[in-house]
């Protein structure tokens, strides 16, 4: 089974639905208390883009963002930043981020997180395949002698 870097599991958690996050925590029977250090609170993020697609950055517009920080009894701190306003989801993700940093829990969660990654990939594949079904070959009709 491939190792998961923290950066990667945070990314996976950010694209996972609330129910799946909840299931992960339930599946490893984590019932201890954790302390909420911050939030979950809804704020905003300014999304930036690039002039012309690849030039200097500019401010495109904002998006809602939910932030949560928790601390496990064991002392590990977990963070989550999620687009949108789902506070429950942000809290679960922060808990999972903390659990994944703990070697004990990591070994239990690893395969579940990889499954979530697989689920995200499949969803993306589905969108691309669907798009590809409308791929078109335009052909040009030449006028006159040309």
């Amino acid at each position, binding site marked *: 089974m491939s190792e998961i870097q923290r950066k990667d599991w945070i990314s996976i958690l950010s694209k996972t639905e609330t129910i799946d996050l909840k299931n992960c925590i339930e599946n490893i029977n984590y019932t201890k208390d954790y302390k909420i250090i911050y939030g979950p609170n809804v704020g905003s993020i*300014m*999304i930036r883009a690039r002039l012309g*697609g690849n030039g200097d950055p*500019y*401010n495109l*517009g904002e*998006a809602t963002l939910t932030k949560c920080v928790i601390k496990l009894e064991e002392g590990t701190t977990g963070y989550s930043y999620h687009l949108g306003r789902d506070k429950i989801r942000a809290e679960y993700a922060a808990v999972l981020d903390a659990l994944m940093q703990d070697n004990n829990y990591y070994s239990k969660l690893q395969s579940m997180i990889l499954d979530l990654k697989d689920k995200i990939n499949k969803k993306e594949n589905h969108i*691309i*395949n669907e798009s590809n079904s409308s791929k078109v070959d335009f052909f040009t009709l030449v006028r006159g002698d040309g």
Partner: protein
Amino acid sequence: MYVAVKGGEKAIKSSLKLLEKKRKETGTKSIEINQIKEQLSFAVDRVINEGSLYDKDLSALAIKQSQGDLVEAIFLLRAYRTTLERYAYSTAIDTSKIIIKRRISASFKDIPGGQILGPTFDYSHRLLDFSLMKEDEINSYENINNQEPKNKEFPSVIDYLNNENLLEQEINNLNDNPFDVTRDPMKFPASRDQWMQILARGDEGFLLGLSYSAIRGFGSKGTHPFVGEIKYGIVDIFISPDELGFEICIGEIEISECQMIDQFAGNKNTPPQFTRGYGLTFGYNERKSMAISIVDRALKSEGYGEEIKFPIQDQEFVLYHADNVEAQGFVTHLKLPHYVDFQGELNLIRKLRNEILQGKKL
């Protein structure tokens, strides 16, 4: 000048009640937010852009609350936005890493990855579909194909022209503190980062009209621009929180991008080449991203040493009037009580008329 008035509390209360009643005149079923999000998705996407806040749930709520008055919905979203603490600025979106839903080029026929029509009204017949009048239930599409696709890469089409140096290059000044209209006052001459933000939240109708004026002859060159590439799809959003010290993905959003190619005759320093106009919007907003790209190119006129003679090239004209929250505020304030001002005008007109009619001025 507007002079404040007092009173009318009871009437206002009653007026608000009537407004709410208008929404439920005959007691039809309440529309669910998810229904608006899915079945009126273009309206939702317009509101997130002009409301300048990517949150489709809140956009749908605003549309419901405003009873479909999109400018009012945009106003609601803008007002909500001001209550939010800003946590972060994202890393600039990389639009080349996109999960594609639509991608076309009107300039090049054969492009790597192909032309993908995606969901579009373009080839529909524009005939009313009367079956929707009595559509009972919507069955979701179940046909899932999640096999690994042959191709996931959609390289930027206009890079072709770049290879031959036929296309103007984007300048990278490494400005990592771009203008922010929500924090900084407008300034002129405006820089491109300033106008791109204002255009992104600008009124679609206004920008569409302006871009139309340019291609009909009231624009920098009066020529026909070409769509280098239009893309619609999903991109990841990244931030680098201080407490983590590395970059993380925080979710994904939909965007529409337009690369417009336009002529430039060249000058002393530059041989003739193609110039670019760029448009980017939240969600599926192709028409607006195209309009922005044409306005962007026109606003660049001054930089090319082109003569500024049309409204679309005039920074102050475009940027001061593109915002529909401001525009509707100023236009519709005229309906508020102006009794004192008008009294003054009345007296003045009476006085002038009297003077003339009594022959004093003749």
